[in-house]
């Protein structure tokens, strides 16, 4: 029988590896048995108070306990939304308004915020949930479960400023995780070092692959990412063998000059997703860790984390673009007027409580008018290279026209990021003034970068405005916070 509920993996791990570490962080650790027992207790508490298929908001620090709350929600037949506890309370309130949670599970220090945003939801302080399990109640919830029931709703920023809740079913996660464990050749007992916050969908791979492979997930303290040397020390001490990080995190480690074989003795798999991976960063990692597996992945939250992947199987120059490769198994990728569109079991059923936004992005496949087949329009541009690999070109809204030329900002960024003396950088278009603005950090000055870029991109693609920054802010998920930098630029304009 095929898997219909991600909890089947949890129960298998509990049965086969009960005393093995499941989730840990410095100073705390839970085994698979402990996670399963705690999750059932939380599930019982919720099931006694709220109906199945209700939204549950989780307001906790990233911790093993938070994972128990998420899985406990699934035991109650409900779905979870982890919130970034550091986001402005106003945005939390907007999300709560869209989601209308039936319950809020909160960590001790978030009690006051939880009360203010809960509205009519049942409030459950995590430490106040006792360890009793109501087996009958959980069995009832389990028997009414179908694999199209939601597992989670993650909120992403909408272009209009109103967050969108991307809903994902058990079935999509099962489809994705079974693919990932096989394609990424994950061994039993794999040990992930987690960078992604739980409100960011890269964490889905971390959490459920470690569960399915009866491995473990080590939660790296967020502060470690400020100190690359300490970060690598932590990975070695925790014996992490697999990481799935945003490229920005990999770039900052590479630029700090701390990558050396003796500093990453346990690492075997380096996966990345969420941003464009600069080949220069990849090459720095490969020279320190030549034997590791490197896999580039691509996908928006709406298709369950990843829909295309590329295992690095050849050399790339710093100035090359890395392919996003091929569709994952059981996934269809169509290029419609250059736009990457996705179909398959991975598709979200839509944005929660937002039918109009859903209808605009999830549309009938125009190539299959005979039958209802929904595809998701990513808003990303892609093409096939001459090897038949998918190449990411950029966002559709980052495509600009200048002097009749169609320009992809992504191409300019690729050239910028490959330049010597540039640590990180990106480009955006100031449409009002018709200027390409380039932002970078690193030692190189404008002329040095311009000279290097001139041989890589046509003259009409060279930036007009050069904005050197000492550092670039990052978003909660660890990507470059482009919006803040753009705002900084806007404020500096007359």
């Amino acid at each position, binding site marked *: 029988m095929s898997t219909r509920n991600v909890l089947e993996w949890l129960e298998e791990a509990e049965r086969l590896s009960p005393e093995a570490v499941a989730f840990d962080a410095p100073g705390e650790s839970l085994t698979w048995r402990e996670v399963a027992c705690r999750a059932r207790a939380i599930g019982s508490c919720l099931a006694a108070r709220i109906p199945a298929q209700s939204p549950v908001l989780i307001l906790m620090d990233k911790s093993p306990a938070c994972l128990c709350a998420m899985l406990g929600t699934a035991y109650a037949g409900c779905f979870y939304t982890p919130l970034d506890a550091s986001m402005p309370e106003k945005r939390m309130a907007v999300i709560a308004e869209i989601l209308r949670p039936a319950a809020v599970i909160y960590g001790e220090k978030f009690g006051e915020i939880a009360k203010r945003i809960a509205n009519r939801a049942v409030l459950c302080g995590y430490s106040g949930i006792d360890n009793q399990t109501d087996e009958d109640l959980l069995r009832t919830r389990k028997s009414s479960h179908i694999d199209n029931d939601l597992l989670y709703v993650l909120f992403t920023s909408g272009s209009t400023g109103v967050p969108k809740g991307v809903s994902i079913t058990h079935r999509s996660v099962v489809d994705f995780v079974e693919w990932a464990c096989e394609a990424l050749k994950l061994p039993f007992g794999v040990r992930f070092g987690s960078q992604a916050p739980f409100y960011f969908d890269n964490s889905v791979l971390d959490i459920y692959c470690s569960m399915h492979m009866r491995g473990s997930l080590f939660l790296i303290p967020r*502060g470690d990412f*400020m100190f690359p040397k300490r970060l690598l020390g932590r990975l070695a001490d925790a014996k992490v063998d697999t990481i799935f990080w945003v490229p920005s995190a990999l770039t900052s480690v590479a630029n700090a000059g701390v990558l050396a074989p003796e500093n990453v003795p346990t690492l075997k798999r380096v996966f990345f997703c969420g941003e464009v991976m600069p080949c220069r960063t990849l090459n720095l990692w490969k020279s320190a860790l030549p034997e590791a597996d490197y896999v580039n992945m691509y996908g928006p939250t709406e298709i369950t984390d990843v829909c295309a992947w590329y295992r690095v199987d050849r050399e790339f120059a710093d100035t090359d673009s890395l392919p996003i490769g091929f569709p994952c198994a059981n996934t269809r990728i169509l290029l419609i007027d250059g736009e990457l569109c996705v179909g398959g079991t991975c598709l979200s059923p839509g944005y929660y409580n937002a039918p109009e936004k859903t209808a605009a992005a999830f549309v009938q496949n125009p190539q299959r008018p005979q039958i209802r087949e929904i595809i998701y329009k990513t808003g990303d541009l892609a093409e096939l290279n001459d090897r038949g690999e998918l190449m990411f070109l950029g966002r559709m809204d980052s495509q600009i026209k200048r002097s009749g030329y169609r320009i992809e900002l992504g191409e300019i960024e690729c050239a910028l990021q490959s330049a010597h003396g540039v640590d990180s950088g990106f480009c955006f278009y100031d449409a009002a003034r018709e200027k390409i603005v380039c932002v970078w950090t690193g030692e190189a000055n404008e002329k040095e970068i311009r000279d290097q870029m001139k041989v890589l991109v046509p003259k009409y693609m060279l930036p007009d405005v050069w904005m050197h920054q000492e550092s670039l802010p990052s978003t909660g998920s660890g990507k470059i916070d482009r919006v803040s930098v753009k705002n900084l630029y806007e404020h500096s304009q007359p």
Partner: protein
Amino acid sequence: MDEMRKLLDALAEVRDDVDFENEQALVDDGVIDSLDLTQIMLALDEAFGIHIPAGEIGPENFNNAQSMLDLVHSLQNS
């Protein structure tokens, strides 16, 4: 000018809502985030004319004002 005063003035430019004089675990308690940290490194660079190597430092160098001053001294003497 007293070096500690100079340091505290530089830190106040970065975050005027943090009690740099008395906080002892700025990083470990999450009082400062990664953006604050890069701005602090820049401020130290400007105030004392030193360059802080990103790969060499740890949270212990930034948990309180005294440890930052110690870091400055060690870099000035190196």
